[in-house]
């Protein structure tokens, strides 16, 4: 079920009141069934994968906790990793590695038609796999106790607001909240409405409308000029941000209406002044997951400078591959790894600041803007590889940008890009300066409701007459 669909809105206005008219002991089961319905709406067969992950990790979690032998604990953890990553690997990466293997053999003049399977990728598999892994790993590390309730764990794995595209929650944060689902406070309801309203607007009016321009340009860059292509790249960067942050807003808002707090996933990343800051603000639930469960176990920055850079690079390469089974994603991750390593080298022992203050740089706002612009340009280059279907397409795109090919509609593309940029920036500026995504609840009621009315009116109107654009990160 897509968030940007009427079916989801009907689902939401049915489930939320239903859960709270029931006695507390029935809330978990109702929400779990609703979550399975939400997931099964795409393809009910994939609910079996959710069930496998749930059963395996619930019992392995318990077993790890009760086991005394460290070696046995490790073996149990490996079973959990093997099961979860095995399912993920099969559904997401089997064809990718098979084809890559074939191509490698072909380079040495060997012909081996490696099996290609017609596999349908289950929606959100990368997200819930990482979420359940964090549960068993945390128990293995002794950082948390396993839950006693199977239902509690089943809801943790399948909780519909964040099931298919995060935020990738930590068991320590989410499980206790799901154990006892309380009616939301008035503040939570207000914040939930604010987050859903803004999220819908960002997803539909910015994300979806941009997707319709960006897709044809990236599919056939040979038909567009330099300015049009460069504008399309900026538009994609706005699209992916508003699509994903809008989605995260809706997820968090929906959870709020159910009395649950989900972590922030985006914190105005395009207002970052360096790449390290960008990764503190972009897809926070994934970057912190990679830090805690990959970068730090690899040694983090504890084993010398060279090892730190290697660890950073490895983490980002795998982070890239997590996004999709394509070498272009690996390059995307690799470029970010390179940027992070270079920035770390430049910073030495100094730590970059992350506060929301335009005047944080010692010089002036101008210096802030220069740093912001250069960071965004670096990020923009990586989006090209993220969005392009292949390296051929990416290099053709780059080639046409730098060959200064004539653009028929340069002015119109510039106007479109600037206007979308300003609207996106308005939301970011408000959230950045007020240091909150839910600052709306503190605004004067008539202003707030007028803003909600207009956002909902245009979002619903556009949603009604355009085919819904799937959320970009669903494919991951």
């Amino acid at each position, binding site marked *: 079920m897509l968030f940007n669909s*009427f079916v989801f809105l009907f689902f939401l206005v049915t489930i939320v009141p239903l859960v709270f008219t029931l006695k507390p002991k029935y809330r978990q089961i109702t929400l779990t069934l609703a979550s399975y319905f939400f997931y099964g709406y795409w393809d009910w067969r994939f609910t079996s994968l959710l069930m496998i992950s749930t059963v395996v990790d619930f019992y392995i979690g318990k077993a790890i906790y009760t086991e005394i032998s460290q070696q046995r604990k490790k073996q149990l953890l490996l079973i959990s990793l093997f099961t979860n990553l095995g399912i993920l690997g099969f559904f997401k990466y089997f064809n990718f590695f098979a084809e890559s293997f074939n191509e490698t053999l072909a380079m040495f003049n060997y012909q081996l038609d490696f099996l290609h399977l017609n596999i349908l990728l289950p929606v959100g598999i990368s997200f819930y796999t990482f979420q359940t892994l964090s549960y068993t790993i945390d128990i293995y590390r002794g950082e948390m106790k396993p839950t006693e309730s199977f239902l509690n764990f089943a809801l943790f794995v399948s909780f519909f607001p964040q099931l298919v595209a995060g935020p990738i929650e930590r068991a320590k944060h989410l499980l206790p909240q799901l154990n006892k689902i309380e009616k939301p406070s008035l503040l939570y309801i207000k914040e939930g409405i604010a987050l859903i309203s803004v999220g819908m607007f960002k997803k539909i009016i910015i994300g979806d*409308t941009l997707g319709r*321009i960006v897709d*044809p340009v990236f599919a056939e860059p040979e038909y567009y000029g330099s300015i049009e292509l460069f504008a399309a790249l900026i538009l994609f960067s706005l699209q992916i941000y508003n699509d994903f942050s809008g989605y995260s807003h809706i997820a968090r808002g929906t959870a709020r209406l159910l009395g649950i707090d989900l972590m922030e996933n985006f914190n105005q990343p395009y207002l970052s002044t360096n790449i390290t800051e960008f990764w503190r603000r972009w897809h926070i639930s994934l970057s912190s997951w990679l830090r805690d469960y990959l970068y730090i176990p690899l040694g983090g920055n504890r084993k010398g400078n060279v090892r730190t850079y290697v660890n950073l690079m490895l983490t980002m390469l795998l982070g890239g591959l997590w996004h999709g089974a394509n070498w272009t994603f690996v390059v995307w991750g690799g470029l970010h790894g390179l940027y992070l390593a270079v920035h770390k080298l430049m910073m030495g022992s100094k730590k970059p600041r992350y506060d929301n203050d335009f005047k944080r740089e010692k010089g002036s706002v101008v210096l802030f803007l220069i740093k912001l612009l250069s960071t965004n340009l670096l990020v923009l280059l990586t989006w090209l590889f993220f969005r392009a279907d292949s390296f051929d397409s990416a290099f053709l795109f780059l080639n046409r940008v730098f060959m200064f090919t004539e653009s028929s509609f340069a002015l119109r593309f510039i106007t479109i890009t600037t206007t979308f940029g300003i609207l996106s920036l308005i939301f970011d500026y408000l959230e950045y300066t007020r240091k909150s995504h839910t600052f709306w609840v503190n605004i004067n009621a008539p202003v707030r409701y*007028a803003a909600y009315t207009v956002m909902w009116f245009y979002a619903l109107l556009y949603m009604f007459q355009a085919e819904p654009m799937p959320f970009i990160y669903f494919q991951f």
Partner: protein
Amino acid sequence: MKKILIYTTLVIGFSLLMEVFLQLTEVSLPNPIGVDQKVGKILIPDSRINLIKEGLYLGEVNEYGYLGPGYPTERTPGAIRIALMGDSYVEAYQLFEQFNFRTVLENTLNNSESEKFEVLNFGRSGMNFGTMYTYYENYVKQFEPDIVLFVIGGDDFVIKNQNLFPGLKIDNQNNLVFTDGFKNSTLYKLRQKYSYLFGISTFELLKKSAKLVSEGYLLHILFDKLNPEPLFTGKPKKASDVEYTSSPRIDSNSVKILSKIFENFNNDGKTKFAIVARGELDQNYISLIKECEIKYLPLYKYVNSLKTDNFDPNYWKGTNKRGHWNHTTHQFVGEYLAKYLKNEFIN
């Protein structure tokens, strides 16, 4: 009371800002179609168009009210003027102007011949041959084309009156006459009375939504997969749902009108006409065209020859849809028509 007033004022203010946003970002531009009491539906000069169908189209209606470069009604001395009549295939709202077959045709002719050629695009979505003819007589003729190509599909020879266009009929004296009943229609009156609304992007979005409701999509949009099949009565929505195959039909009224139109073509001493079939025509229509000694090009046969295992002339990579001709096919059609025109009319 004060709060309600503030709320209302702000809703209006924010809506105006959204209107500006929609127009600047071209998410929804005002409708470029107006209504003229003689011609019927016209393109409003200098209107911007941004459509995302199978591909991305950005363009502008020229100052004379048609697509492509604006050539005035006065002819350039010595130039050969070609008018393209047709439906959405000629209009080509799927790709930029510089890649459509009109441009390819014009460039190919100008690069290979000593004369100057001007190719004017009068294609309009949804037109059948009857409407194309009324459009030609009432509007295009003033541009004094030397050659007129009618690019038609399989069904276009079925002459039916269309909304907001003059109709055609054979009167008691067996003459072909235009009917202007469209001026009495409610739709025409509403469009005349509230023409200013059509300049508002938000209204355009509301109009599209209302159209979907009237076509029976409401339950499908609201309930998606949960909508039981029998309730879905509308036409297929996506271009990918549409198979562009011909469905030839023939009726006696259409044949009578067509004979008259062809007779008028033959009586026109100045302009030459050709029928270019982009879809398969009923054999009876082909016989009629030949009987009336009108030039006929079965273009679809040559376009179909492009089809291979790896190439579909109607496939659009960006949107993963099948629909109108894609970039490669437009290039082919433009070059093919140039060759055809040189052989049949120019040399």
